[in-house]
């Protein structure tokens, strides 16, 4: 009898899962997304604990071990001045992850408020912002990043700023489109009827309802930013030598492909794995946050 009574009581006591928790559960049900998450967290751990994980100093040269193949002492081999490739790949994770996260944060910090203003205010402001965004989008991403990095000067921080600014128009356009859809919803009308000022409606009622596609785009943009950082470092506009970066390692390695292919294989594989992981997570998030799949 007690069991019969407790069943409805339990049913009423169970509160529905929050949208975030529901999305996380759906994300964890997708095998590719879980694999992506595992790889991303592995790279985050590598970046955080690099000094303890790396077997050698990434900057220490050894004239007795120039371009040595993989061995017990150097698992991934050594480079053209005897530096340990494994240690440089491990420390290079820091530059790539930092560039990915910081540049996407810059894009979000710039793009979301501008897109929110354009979509919510409309009129002349929208027209001006939209045309400016179109002008930026007309320029290919990497060309714009190279041009900005050239004007700012070659360094990792400037590369991150350049990538962040180059990726901003995508977030402006996405936020604007989402805000235009959301601002005509009944709950926004209700918030207006209650006497909320426009900025409060935009920040408290509209913005939280446009975050799902922004999270997905941000995850995919991190993957693009990792590639862009590697590309800029490859060209000599990102992380400066002797600091390790996957892109600059590939640039050096291309001169020794015949004699020491391991110099190129490992940083290339690291870029490949990290970008693939972020893409898998992004695709998983897109499915998990899609309201049509509820």
């Amino acid at each position, binding site marked *: 009898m007690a069991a019969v009574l407790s069943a409805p009581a339990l049913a009423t006591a169970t509160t529905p899962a929050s949208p975030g928790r529901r999305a996380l559960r759906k994300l964890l049900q997708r095998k590719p997304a879980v694999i992506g998450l595992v790889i991303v967290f592995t790279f985050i751990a590598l970046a955080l604990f690099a000094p303890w994980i790396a077997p050698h100093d990434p900057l220490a040269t050894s004239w007795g071990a120039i371009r040595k193949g993989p061995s017990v002492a150097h698992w991934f081999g050594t480079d053209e001045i005897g530096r340990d490739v494994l240690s440089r790949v491990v420390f290079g994770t820091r530059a790539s992850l930092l560039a990915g996260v910081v540049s996407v944060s810059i894009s979000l910090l710039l793009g979301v408020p501008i897109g929110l203003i354009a979509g919510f205010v409309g009129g002349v402001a929208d027209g001006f912002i939209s045309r400016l965004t179109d*002008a930026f989008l*007309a*320029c*290919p*991403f*990497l*060309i*714009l990043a*190279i*041009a900005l*990095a*050239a*004007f700012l000067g070659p360094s990792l921080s400037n590369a991150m700023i350049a990538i962040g600014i180059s990726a901003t128009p995508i977030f402006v356009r996405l936020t604007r489109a989402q805000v235009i859809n959301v601002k005509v919803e009944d709950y926004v009308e209700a918030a207006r009827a209650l006497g909320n000022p426009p900025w409060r409606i935009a920040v408290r009622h509209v913005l939280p309802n446009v975050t799902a596609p922004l999270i997905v785009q941000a995850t995919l943009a991190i*993957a693009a930013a990792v*590639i862009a950082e*590697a*590309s800029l470092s*490859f*060209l*000599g*506009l990102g992380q400066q030598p002797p600091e390790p970066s996957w892109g600059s390692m*590939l640039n050096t*390695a*291309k001169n020794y*492909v*015949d004699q020491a*292919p*391991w110099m*190129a*294989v490992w940083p*290339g*594989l690291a*870029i*490949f794995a990290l*970008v*693939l992981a972020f*893409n898998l997570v992004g695709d998983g998030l897109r499915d998990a946050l899609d309201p049509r799949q509820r």
Partner: protein
Amino acid sequence: MTRYFACEYWYTLAAFFHWTPPLRYHPFWEEPLTAMKSLWVPALILGGFISAVVMRLLRSTMLEVLRQDYVRTARAKGLNERSVVLKHALRNALTPVITLGALELGTLLSGAVLTEQVFTIPGFGKLIVDSVFNRDYAVVQGVVLVTATAYVMLSLFADLAYFAVNPRLRG
């Protein structure tokens, strides 16, 4: 990402078969055969990058088109599956691919920067990078302007092509 995967592929070839792709550029008008030999590797890398995007879009569009009524009608008429897929579904699914193809040409302009650098092809990508290191900002501005204009023109051609292949848009 495909670019890096392609690079890995060549590095693996170099490692195991001791073969590297030709890394010297030959002008097409002077030595067409040698130029083709040196160009097929960068072309394969850049084409591989785009083929992944096209394949993904075509897959999703085909799934959508195969659910349409006219496909069901074609099957009901007794057409074989090959004819249904190739003549009725694929032709309709190719419309967004044309748009994407034109836009991806714009992406190629930036994607080619690294490839041109590796294979020493004197294109826009190499020009902008060389200008950056020579602090020749006028050339950098010029390249950015020309690529942006080319990108806009390609978008316009994509829209026009969309109208040309989709009779429903002509009104």
